[in-house]
């Protein structure tokens, strides 16, 4: 017997790579589950957070989850960190484009580009 996965389920994978937190949700991010993503980001807000949101396994995002990402960006910026986006599917890219997302986010094609964009020189230097 196969049991149908409930539609709003989104899984969130968290990794650290060269001092950068990589958050990778799997599945459709929408109104019903976007709080999960928001909480995961909030949990990782240390001083000067450096976060990459890997959206390569997100086929669809609605306007509410877009709001979640924008809220996260604001929190991260307030702490002098940054949140960057990688692996946007065409559908998701379209939504960011229409919202003028390039103006707010740094968006990269691959995870590697996203992580290495936080070059060591960008890291806060000890006085």
């Amino acid at each position: 017997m196969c049991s149908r996965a409930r539609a709003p389920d989104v899984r969130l994978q968290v990794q650290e790579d060269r001092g950068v937190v990589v958050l990778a949700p799997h599945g459709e991010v929408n109104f019903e589950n976007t709080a999960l993503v928001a909480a995961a980001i909030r949990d990782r807000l240390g001083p000067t957070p450096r976060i990459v949101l890997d959206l390569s396994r997100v086929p669809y995002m609605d306007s509410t989850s877009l709001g979640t990402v924008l809220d996260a960006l604001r929190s991260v910026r307030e702490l002098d960190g940054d949140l960057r986006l990688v692996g946007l599917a065409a559908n998701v890219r379209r939504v960011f484009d229409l919202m003028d997302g390039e103006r707010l986010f740094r968006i990269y094609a691959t995870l590697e580009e996203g992580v290495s964009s936080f070059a060591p020189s960008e890291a806060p230097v000890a006085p």
Partner: protein
Amino acid sequence: MSVAAEPELAAVACKGRVLLVEDDRDIRGALREFLEGSGFAVDEAADGFEGIERFRTLRHDIVVSDIQMPRMKGIDLLRRIRQIEPEASVVLVTGHPSMDVAIEGMKEGACDFIIKPFSLKKVLFIVTRLMEEKRLKAENRELSQKLKEGEATARVHENARRRLGEISRLALLAQPGREDDGLKGLEERVLRTAGEALEAEAAALAVAHEGGYSVLSLGLESPTWVRTQKLERDADPMVAALEAVSSPDGQAGLLACPIANGSRVVGALALARRSRAFSDGERQILESLCGDAAVALENAQLFRDMHEEFSRTEQELKLASRIQQGLLPARPPQMPRLRIRTLTRGARRVSGDFLGFTRGFDGCLGVFVGDVAGKGMPAALLMAMATHVFRELGKRRHAPEDVLAEANSTLADYLGRGVTYVTAIHALINPRRHEMVFAQAGHERPLVYRAATGAVEMLEATGTVLGMFPRARFEPRKARLDKGDVLVLITDGVVDATDRSGCQFGHERLKATIALNGSGGAPAVMAAIEGEIDRFVGGSPPRDDITLVAVEMGYEGWEEVVSTGARDAANSAKAVLYDYVEGLGLERAAFDDVKFVIKEAVQNAIEHGHRGDARKTFKLAWRADEDQLVIRVIDSGPGFCPADLPNPTAAANAFKPRGRGVFLMRRMMDEVSFNAAGNEIELVKSLTP
């Protein structure tokens, strides 16, 4: 026994006379052959009226009648036969093993039920048992008579009285189902009957069960006692029963007798008496009692098995019916330029009709409607198979004649020639070009309401049934379908629907109904046909499955679906609309935009309009013509003022939570507007390149 009026019946020295009332000639024939082979004289009637006539003159010992028959139902027949002869033994045969029918039948005095499909052996068993009961009752009456007349000697008198008591009790025992204490209770009653009739102090009964024997022993004098024990398979039931009644103090009388059905020993009964030995006469009494007990025990066992089978069949039917519902389209497909309605109704829990839709290239719609010969479970199984074959073929092949040819050879492979067959029609409708290609296989011909003239046309087509001739070929036919025309596909259950007097609904009535209502399009036609059939049959039970599909051409008006905000319901409502939008042939990106917008709008309705209350309902409505697609989402909330929404791309608004959804909708659609109350959003997408 009264002398039969007909020589053919009187001439047979038979076990009894049975009247079969059954409208299905094949079933009747098979039963007759079998019962005659088993020594019964069999008489037939094709319906209830004939049955009553035969019974009035011949007074058969047993009447076996189908419940579901045209003209007169089995229950009515039962009632009328019991009026003629209150002691008549009537067995009802039913294809619907529902408790309601069984209870109604019992109330009216039915002796037993046979559930279709039945084994002939079971029928023989029931008929034999009823004859045995009849014999016991007759003997009972005869002995009572003798006692009254005082003809008997003292010896005969005593024996007769004993026998009488025994018979009257056993006659009761032989009625399974009247007692509610089951097999165990019956065993105890057999013991008490035997023990009391022969004045024994202890009685024991060994009865075969799965894996061995169980022995029940009773002490009949005070203090009374009951003991049960289990024995291995190879134990001797006679020895076991004797051991159970013998006492270490010794008894003057010990008597045991095997209980056998034919040559098969199913148990043994033993009696013990301290005071005196058992006489030969008493041994004979025990023997005949054991013969009756064998029948009673087997009856009870069979009744229990049947009851289990009954509930199992009931469960299986429920499940099968659910599975079948899943094979039929949950709702007619939504396609631009077409308005489609369907009606399916099974005469029984499971149906042999099938229908389905496939989507062809270029916005074409494939429709198939079919009918499996026969009814009930076998037809239902074939229906499932045929649905699958047509669905799969409809995806791969587009020419209707090819779909039928392949379905034919596939079904012929599975069925084996001559077992049964399937009739079907497959049509491919091109809504843009206003034409249809179809092919048919022994099926009801398609009907078309012509909007221009108001006439109804029956399209010409021929083709042999499916599953009989593996190499049969099918002819494609073309027909023009203009705007407003309504194509109607049916199964024969529609025209064969029968009223109380036996008249059929027929093609002329169907055509007239379509002609009168065609200008109202597919929904009006469908509602009118359904209403007319219901009025026509006037409550008589449906004899055949009914399936109808109406496809209206060139429809550009509104369609709608209403749903609660519960996730699954809302998702399937959205899916209906996606289905429709997909048929518009938009570019991928544009299609994705429309889908996004529908999701956003529905989410707004639920989250903002209804404040998350999943019980409130919203409505999706849509229409499309050559120029544009219009979608409306109407919620049942208090509404809001869209003018208050900020523009989220303005730098100052970038992090404001409101307005993003509507902003995105405006960017993705050509027009977005709200009604004055603010609970209805209208979304327009241009379809002109």
